[in-house]
């Protein structure tokens, strides 16, 4: 390979326009094009494997991130949160309430404080995540048929913590409350069934669809994996492009073995290379890791592949195009690293896209990850059929086309630069 490069490097510069005209047409052109694709794939692979720094982005990140990233969510759920109880009543009923709260799977009473201040201090010191205060005349009020109060102190600065603590208190207090009332109604002669209905004539059944166990890892990790696919391509190819620009070695971008400077086969050859690479990653992420982590996988790996074809292609074409603009090896990391989290937010999975302004929703669609995440979540997590994601899939194909054109014009610009590069001087 290197011998070939040297001989190519000695080639004389050629006048582009004249040379292009003698480059055949029809079948001949296509056959030559295929040869170029093959050459580009070979040279791209050897180029990749000779540059360790780049290889980290195409292999290392994909191995390390998916192992490290889900570690915080290993437990998936926040359970048995410590809470403090202040029981001024100290009656059978108040103790029953505390036992019920303690039995709830979301909270666990770790402190019995004698005063509210004592409990609050534990709360500020983050030793407990909530406080329940039962007032002095609690049991008496309940028995007299007067309203009894229970005060609950929660911290809503962390969503999951708040949700769990509140749910724990709310459910145990409601259950006790319902029990008291049922007893009263039944004492008046109503049947159990009648009493239940009397208490809640319009019961609501809330059924979580998809991610029904509300696991945090299965909520966030799939999204991050898709972003990793996109960002490593953008940054990795950007680093390749920056290195080329820094060394003015444009023959890596537009190879020498094709004197006609055909751009389409060069793009296709590069795209094929990275597509092959990323097909492995897609299988590893969604075929292997998902099973290892036990995340839901409703879609078959085949339909995920089918869905990701235009996603990978559009990202690859965009990466090829952008790679021509970076001026140094470090530029792409410096500029693109910060975009990961912006792109995650733009996909609308943490903050609904319906709450974003119109221009932002429109802009988010030109980022391939937006439609990739949406469609993937529908297909794999929400059990949608492929027909349900055709719209998102269509957008990805449109992006593929648009970014192909973009990469074509970007590479044509490079041919101009290449003519000026030292090799041709």
């Amino acid at each position, binding site marked *: 390979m290197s011998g070939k490069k040297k001989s190519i490097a000695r080639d004389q510069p050629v006048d582009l326009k004249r040379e292009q005209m003698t480059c055949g047409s029809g079948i001949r052109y296509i056959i030559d094009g295929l040869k170029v694709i093959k050459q580009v794939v070979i040279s791209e692979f050897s180029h990749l494997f000779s540059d360790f720094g780049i290889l980290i982005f195409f292999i290392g990140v994909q191995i390390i991130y998916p192992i*490290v*990233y889900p*570690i*915080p969510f*290993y437990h998936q*759920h*926040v359970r048995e949160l410590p809470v403090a109880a202040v029981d001024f009543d100290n009656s059978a009923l108040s103790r029953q309430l505390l036992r019920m709260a303690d039995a709830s799977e979301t909270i666990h009473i770790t402190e019995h404080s004698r005063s509210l201040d004592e409990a609050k201090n534990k*709360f*500020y010191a*983050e030793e407990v995540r909530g406080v329940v205060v039962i007032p002095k005349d609690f049991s008496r009020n*309940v028995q007299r*048929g007067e*309203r*009894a109060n*229970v005060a*609950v*102190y*929660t911290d*809503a600065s*962390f969503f*999951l913590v708040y949700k769990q603590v*509140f749910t724990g*208190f*709310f459910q145990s207090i409601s259950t*006790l409350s319902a029990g*008291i*009332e049922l007893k009263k109604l039944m004492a008046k002669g109503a049947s159990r069934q*009648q009493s239940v209905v*009397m*208490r*809640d*004539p*319009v*019961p609501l*059944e*809330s*059924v*979580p669809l*998809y991610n029904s166990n*509300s696991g*945090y890892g299965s*909520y966030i990790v799939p999204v991050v994996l898709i972003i990793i696919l996109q960002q490593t391509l953008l940054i990795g190819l950007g680093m390749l492009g920056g290195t080329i620009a820094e060394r003015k070695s444009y023959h890596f971008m537009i190879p020498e073995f094709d004197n006609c400077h055909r751009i389409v086969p060069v793009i296709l050859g590069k795209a094929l290379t990275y597509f092959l690479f990323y097909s492995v990653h897609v299988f590893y992420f969604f075929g292997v890791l998902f099973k290892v982590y036990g995340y839901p996988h409703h879609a078959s790996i085949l339909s995920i592949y089918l869905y990701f074809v235009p996603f990978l292609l559009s990202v690859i074409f965009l990466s090829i195009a952008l790679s021509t603009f970076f001026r140094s090896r*470090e*530029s792409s*990391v*410096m*500029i693109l*690293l910060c975009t*990961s*989290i*912006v792109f995650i*937010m*733009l996909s609308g999975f*943490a903050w*609904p896209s319906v*709450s974003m302004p119109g221009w*932002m929703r429109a802009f988010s669609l030109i980022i391939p990850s937006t439609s990739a995440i949406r469609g993937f*979540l529908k297909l794999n997590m*929400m059990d*949608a059929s492929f027909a349900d994601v055709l719209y998102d899939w269509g957008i990805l194909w449109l992006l593929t086309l648009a970014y192909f054109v973009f990469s074509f014009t970007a590479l044509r610009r490079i041919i101009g630069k290449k003519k000026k590069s030292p090799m041709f001087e």
Partner: protein
Amino acid sequence: MRTGIIAVVLREIDRIRLRVLYSFVMLLLPTATAVVFIAMFYEGVPRNLPIAVLDGDNSALSRKLVRMIDSLPSVEVKYRVNDALDGKERVSGGDAFALVVIPHNFEKDVLRFRAPHVYNYYNNQYLLIGSTMQKDIYSAVRTLSAGISIAARMKKGESLYQARVSAQPIEIQQHVMFNPNTNYMYYLVSSLLPNMLHIFIILMSIYSIGIELKERTIGELVRVAGGSCFRAIIGKFIPYLFVFSLLGIGMNVILFRVLGVPLRGSFLIIMAATISLILAYQAVGVLFLTIMANVRLALMMASFYASTAYTFIGMTFPIFAFPLPARIWAEILPLTHFMRIYINQAIAGAPAHLTLSSFAALAAFMLSPFILGPRFKKIASDERYWGGL
């Protein structure tokens, strides 16, 4: 030629002016990401999330329930469907976030006390949105239910007060200590902006010094600093500290003034934390560069360190629920300690003395490069380390 810290600062300002990448990372990208996040969160809490309703009864009571749900600020009944399958497709297709099903003969069954179930199938893939919506719809149905229950009891001769008490013998008085309006926009956005800032700081810190290694100018840098590596680094830091402090002020103004994040504690403490965050990440940048002795490898190390940070600072999933290795990792991120001060002072308004340990941690990060001081000196003086790609 002048030497010393000031000479290094002047030299650095010249370098920043000459390369477009510096202004890209310190001006354009921070501004652009700030604009995106301001626009994204400007509306505040999510409102009018589209849901689908299957009203199988179409009676006065069922329409009343639909109106009650529709009037909730968080949801909007956007689709009325005629069969459950159609509704489910709305949800799985992503058009609607939930499907509420009111059964046939709803009104008749309610009045005959047969307790017909209303179903709320909500998309829980969107965790935050799902649980907000579910809570609101629950409260709407519960209100209707309690109203009917109270009316029925009053018919049986109970007074309004008695009926109310028996409908709910124990009342929960909720005191939400911190973030009382349970607005999660506050904490999403107030962790996203510092997260962006820390990425820019650590990248710039590594790049600005590392590029001197790569371009073999680090010897000259130390000469300009009068032969002292310490002064060279301090001189290098000053222009970036200045720019990032301005960005930090901008960030806090955006958060507290533009987006209305509550500020229950002291702005001064928050600014002190912001500047400590900048210094801490500048220092960690130098530490990474010293370890790797190569700008690109140090940048990669920083990429990993900074791009995973958002997960590990525990704003989304709480740190105490992490397994031990992840908890340790969280502690070695300055951003975690910054967020503790930030939450404590801005959202919680907790006693200020609780921030002391976090400030101490940030100070430890600032001092961390001194551990490898001798190695830095070696790298800066030994040409074998220079010019690496």
